[in-house]
C-alpha cells in the first residue's frame, strides 16, 4: 500500500510560477482524475512529481510513503514505484521495445530478470493491451503513430508494475478505438495490479472507460474543486466557465 502525498506545492519554470499551492493525495488502488483547461499546470504537476529538471519546487512537499521526493533523481522515484506515462513520448532510436523493457525492469531489481519470466510477463502484457507481439521488436517510439506511442506507454506501465502512475493526457491525439484500448488497459491494470493512478486529461472522454473515484479540477495552478464522478458529468454539461465563476465568487 503506497501513498503519494502532495502538500502545498509551488512550482516555477524560468519564466513564471505555474503551480501555486497544490494539495493532492493518491493511494494505491485509487483512481483519480485531474481535469483542467489548457495552461492550468497539469503537465507541470506530472513532470514535477517525477523530478523533471526544468521545474523548480519553490515551496511545499512531495511525499511518497512519507519520504520526501524533492532531493531524489527521477530514476530513484521510479524505483520507489512511481510511473509517468508521457503526453509526448520520445523516440529511443536503436533500442527495441522489448530490450528497453528488460533494461527498465532490471534497473529496478538487484538480479536481472530471467529470460523465461520476462517472456511470460511480456506475453501477458501484450495480450492485455491488445498489441501485436511484433510491436515489441520495433525501436521504441521510433516512427510510431500517436496511438502506438500511447500503447507503448501503457505497455511499459504494465511491465514495470508501479504502485502509483501518473498518466499525462494519455488520451490526447487518439482516435476512439485507440482511446478505448488504452483506457481499458489502464482499467485492467488497476483491477489486476491494484495500482493507484492520477489520470490527467483535458477532455472527459477517457473517463467513459476508466471510472475515477476522485475528481479534481485544476485552474491557474490550484485545485479549485474536488468531487466524485458527478463532477465529470457536470464539466461535460457546462464546461469550465461556470466553475471558474463559482470559484471567483467564493474567493
Amino acid at each position: 500500500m503506497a501513498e503519494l502525498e502532495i502538500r502545498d506545492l509551488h512550482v516555477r519554470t524560468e519564466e513564471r510560477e505555474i503551480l501555486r499551492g497544490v494539495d493532492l493525495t493518491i493511494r494505491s488502488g485509487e483512481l483519480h482524475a485531474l481535469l483542467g483547461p489548457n495552461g492550468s499546470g497539469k503537465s507541470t504537476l506530472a513532470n514535477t512529481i517525477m523530478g523533471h529538471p526544468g521545474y523548480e519546487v519553490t515551496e511545499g512537499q512531495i511525499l511518497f510513503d512519507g519520504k520526501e521526493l524533492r532531493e531524489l533523481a527521477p530514476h530513484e522515484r521510479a524505483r520507489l514505484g512511481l510511473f509517468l506515462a508521457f503526453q509526448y513520448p520520445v523516440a529511443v532510436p536503436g533500442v527495441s521495445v522489448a530490450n528497453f523493457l528488460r533494461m527498465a525492469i532490471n534497473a529496478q531489481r538487484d538480479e536481472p530478470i530471467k529470460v523465461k519470466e520476462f517472456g511470460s510477463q511480456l506475453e501477458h502484457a501484450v495480450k492485455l493491451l491488445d498489441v501485436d507481439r511484433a510491436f515489441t521488436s520495433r525501436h521504441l517510439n521510433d516512427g510510431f503513430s500517436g496511438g502506438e506511442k500511447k500503447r507503448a506507454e501503457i505497455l511499459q506501465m504494465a511491465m514495470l508494475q508501479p504502485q502509483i502512475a501518473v498518466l499525462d493526457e494519455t488520451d490526447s491525439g487518439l482516435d476512439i478505438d485507440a482511446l478505448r484500448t488504452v483506457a481499458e488497459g489502464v482499467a485492467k491494470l488497476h483491477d489486476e495490479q491494484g495500482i493507484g493512478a492520477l489520470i490527467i486529461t483535458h477532455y472527459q472522454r477517457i473517463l467513459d472507460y476508466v471510472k475515477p473515484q476522485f475528481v479534481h479540477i485544476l485552474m491557474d495552478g490550484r485545485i479549485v474543486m474536488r468531487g466524485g464522478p458527478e463532477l465529470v458529468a457536470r464539466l461535460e454539461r457546462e464546461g469550465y466557465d461556470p466553475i471558474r465563476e463559482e470559484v471567483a465568487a467564493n474567493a
Partner: protein
Amino acid sequence: MPEAAMPAPPADSTRRATATPRKAGAAREATLHFALDGVGTPRIPLAESRERARAAYERLALPSWRRSGFWTTSLEQLDLEGLERRTHEPQPSGPAFLDGQRSAGVLLQRDSSVVHVELEPELAERGVILCSLEDAAREHSELFERYYLRRLPIDRHKLEAASAAFWTGGAFLYVPPGLHVPDPFQIVYEISQGGTAQYVHTLAIAGAGSDVRLREYGLAGDSDGDSLHAGQFELYLEDGARCRLAQVVDWGVGGVHDVSTSSVEVERDAWCHWLPALLGGALIHHHDEIAIAGTGGDMAFRGLFFTERDERLDVFAVDLHETGPSGGDVHWRGAASGDSRASFEGLIKINHGAQQSHTYLQFHSMLLSASAELDAIPSVLVGADDVSASHGGTVGELDEDLIFYMQTRGLTRPQAVRVIVEGFFEPLIVQLDDPPLEQLIRERIGAKLAGAADEIERYALAR
C-alpha cells in the same frame, strides 16, 4: 598533387597532433580530387617498388592534412627516427581475445614480426592461402605480383612511402573461386609497447563466386610514448564474390599514430559489406576507398568512430563507381567526447560512363562534450547523366528529454546516456551479422562511455 602538399601548420605549435583553426579557402576544394581513383602502382618487382618508395620517403617531409577547411592534422612533431622496429619470435598460439571464437584462420603480427599463423587444414587442402605477405611474395609470386599494389600508390606522402618501403610480415589471404567460408579469417596487427614503428601491408583476394568473412584488427594496450602504425590494405573481390569485411582499430590510451590506406575493389556482380570501426588512437588518419569496377557490383560501406580525450581522427571515405550499373550505400556514424577532434569527408565519385549507378552517402554525428569538435564534409562528383547520387546527415547532441524519459523508467543518468550512444551506433552494429564482433564493439563503446561519464555529465549540466 598529393595531400602532403597542404600548407604546414604554424611552427610554434606544440601539440603532438596539432589542430589549428584556419579559414576555409581555395585549398579545401582540392581534397575532392584526392581519391585514388583506381590509380595504383604499375606491376614492378617488389624490390623495385620498395626502392621507389624509399626514394619518396627520403624526399618527402612529414605530412600535415587540412581535411575540413577548418583545422589541420599534422604529424610534423612525430619523431620518426626515434621509433624502433621491434622483432619477435614465433609463438604457438594466437591472440587471447580470439580464444573460443570460431575462425577459418588467424594471423598475428606483433610489431614487425608475424608471430603466429593458423589455417583450418581443410581449407588449406581446398586451396586457401593464409600466410605472411613476405612468404607470399616468395612462395606465391604469381598471385602476389598480379595483385600487389594494383590499386594502391606508394608515394603520396612520407608515411605511405614508409609503409611501402619498409613493411615486414604482412598478411596474404587467397580464397579460390567458388569457395564459401562461413567462419571469419582474422588478421591482427598488434603494437606491443610505446616507441614502436609498425609498417604493415594486407593483401586479400576473394576468387570469383567465393564467399568470405575477413576481420582485420589494429590493437595496442595503453602505452607511453609515441608509436606509428603505417598500413596499407587491399582487397580484391573477383566476379560474383561476396565479402563481409570489418576493420577494428583500437590503439588504446597512448601515443599510437595510425596513418593507413585501404582499398577495396568490387568486380562484376560482386558484393562487399565493409565496416571500419575506429575506436581509439592518438591520431588516426584513414583513407578508405571502395571502387565498383565491374557491372552489377554492389556494396554497403559502413563505418563508425568514437574519439575521446585529445585524440585526432581524420577519415576520407570514397565511394567510387567506375562502371554501371552499380550500387552503393555509404553510412558512417561518429561520436566525439573530451577535447577530441574528428573530421569525416565522404566522397561519392561516379566516373564518366558509369551509367545507372545508384548510391547514397549519409553521416551522423554526436557531440558529447563542449570542447570536442566534429566536422562532416559530404561531396559528390558525377560524370554520368543517368545516375542517382545523394547525401544526407544529422548532427546530434544528447537529448535531455530523452534522458529524462529513460530516468522515469528507472535508468540512471549514465545508463540513459549509454543507451542513447549505443542506440546511435546500433543501426550499424546489428548489420555486422557477426555476434562476437558485435559484442566486442558494443563492449568497447560501453567502456569508452564509462571512461567519459564525468565529462559527459558536466557537459550536460552546463547546457
